[in-house]
């Protein structure tokens, strides 16, 4: 069985950035396994611009952003396999994949970087009543069909969910000549970025109906229409508010779910809020030598943050391979999210062995105005930052410096919470 130092599962933005930084950190024996026909992952179909403002200080389209990393990986001669579908990963770090050329193959790795990304919540998970005709797509499927495979998806369109992909597709389909009639959002606020609401909906006078959902789908072979109703505070449809829309297409943009079947198989501890594995400050999962980064760890809104996170995972995986083990002496602190903070990544910090600082990323539970983000070491408040607005759709972060723990040698818990300012 062939053994590699590092195997990266997934050749999207996270996998590429992780592999590049692992190689820069001194490990050359790397293999990226990608199931699609090209590297770059979801960026290949995200042809709109707005990527890379943090990483490259310019506004790129998805394929351009991906190309910067693909070119770098190729220049650094990092090996990769395309059309390679990973079927299983064992706790002993044996990876089983298959592709057309080699058939079924088993390889082993000293370290594994999980970078499988996420997938869209499908209709089946949404409990929408009605027929199951053709013409109902997740927004990302429609995006791929249009932007890569060259199909016209539909002409009369209703979109359920105001996540960024749904908003981007509202504009995309409008530009291609479709009539996007309405975007319905179950929540009282949009999960998408402000900029996308303005430039994808307002620019084209597409109405956004908050606190609305689809309660019926018509059409037996092809969808012919949907019924949309307002929902109450408990997200239950309000009788009498139903409005019918004729349409030939329904797009669903109702959330993304980290794709962690392989992760679960390894047996690492999972997080119920992120649907990703729990990790420490090195982005290492509960199984030594298995790291995770990007949307498989928690869903991001900016690829720039994915690249930064993945680079850290790559560096740490390389350090693990070069040193042979993780340090014996540890002082693990658990991060606790409460009062409006839904989760944190990482979930633990090993103060003994951490870098000079660690970036803790998290999301809030609701839209909050004029609140502070407070950090407690034990029961002592050590940081408080006032925010005029916090929204679930915008990931937040705080930096914790190694120095800051000097005065707190015995703490076992860090709490991150929102507080009235």
């Amino acid at each position, binding site marked *: 069985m062939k053994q590699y130092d590092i195997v990266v599962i997934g050749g999207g933005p996270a996998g590429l950035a992780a592999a590049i930084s692992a190689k820069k950190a001194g490990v050359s024996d790397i293999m990226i396994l990608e199931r699609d026909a090209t590297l770059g992952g979801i960026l290949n179909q995200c*042809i709109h611009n707005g990527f890379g403002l943090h990483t490259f200080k310019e506004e790129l389209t998805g*394929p*351009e952003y991906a190309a910067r990393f693909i070119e770098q990986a190729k220049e650094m001669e990092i090996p990769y396999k395309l059309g390679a579908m990973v079927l299983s990963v064992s706790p002993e770090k044996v990876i089983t994949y298959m592709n057309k050329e080699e058939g079924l193959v088993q390889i082993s790795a000293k370290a594994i970087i999980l970078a499988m990304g996420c997938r869209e919540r499908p209709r089946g998970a949404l409990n929408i009543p009605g027929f199951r005709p053709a013409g109902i797509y997740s927004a990302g499927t429609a995006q791929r069909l*249009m932007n*890569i495979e060259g199909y016209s998806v539909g002409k009369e369109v209703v979109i359920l969910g105001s996540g960024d992909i749904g908003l981007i597709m509202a504009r*995309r389909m409008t530009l291609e*000549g479709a009539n996007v009639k309405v975007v319905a959002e179950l929540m009282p606020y949009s999960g998408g970025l402000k*900029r996308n609401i303005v430039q994808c909906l307002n*620019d084209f006078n597409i109405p956004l109906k908050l606190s609305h959902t689809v309660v019926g789908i018509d059409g037996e072979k092809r969808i012919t229409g949907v019924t949309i109703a307002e929902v109450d505070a408990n997200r239950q449809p309000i009788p009498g508010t139903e409005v019918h829309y004729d349409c030939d297409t329904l797009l669903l943009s109702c959330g993304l779910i980290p794709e962690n079947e392989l992760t679960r198989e390894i047996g690492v501890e999972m997080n119920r809020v992120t649907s990703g594995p729990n990790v420490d400050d090195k982005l290492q999962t509960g199984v030594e030598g298995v790291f995770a980064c990007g949307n498989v760890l928690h869903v991001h809104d900016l690829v720039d943050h994915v690249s930064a996170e993945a680079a850290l995972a790559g560096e740490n995986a390389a350090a693990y391979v070069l040193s042979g083990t993780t340090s014996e002496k540890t002082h693990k602190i658990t991060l606790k999210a409460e009062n409006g903070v839904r989760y944190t990544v990482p979930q633990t910090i090993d103060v003994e062995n951490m870098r000079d600082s660690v970036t803790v990323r998290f999301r809030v539970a609701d839209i909050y105005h004029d609140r502070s983000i407070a950090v407690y070491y034990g029961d002592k408040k050590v940081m408080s930052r006032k925010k005029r607005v916090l929204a679930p759709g915008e990931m937040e972060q705080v930096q914790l410096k190694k120095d800051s723990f000097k005065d707190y040698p015995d703490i076992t818990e860090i709490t991150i919470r929102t507080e009235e300012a």
Partner: protein
Amino acid sequence: METRNLTCIGCPMGCALTVTMDGENITVAGNTCPVGEKYAKKEVTNPTRVVTSSVRVNGADIARVSVKTASDIPKNKIFDCMAEIMKIEVNAPVSIGDVIIENCAGTGVSVVATKNVPSAT
């Protein structure tokens, strides 16, 4: 005198802006920082957008190559630009930055490829 309501895209705050135009005189209300005023003035005098789309590519493994206007164009030219983009077909290979349409819809701005598309394998 004309009034327009806008949402600022400068940050997640998304301030609700009210812009009053009285001839040359433009006043912005509702903004909580200078970014909002600058954004609102540009939006009511010279709104521009980068247009991104895709065109058919022949002789490749994928059907479309993604494209964009090389810089922002006037907002009211978006659909004129799209009409030209939708008529175009190109042949692989295509490289990022290749000019697909020069001076698209009279804007003086070119449409360029944003994806490397090699010839079919």
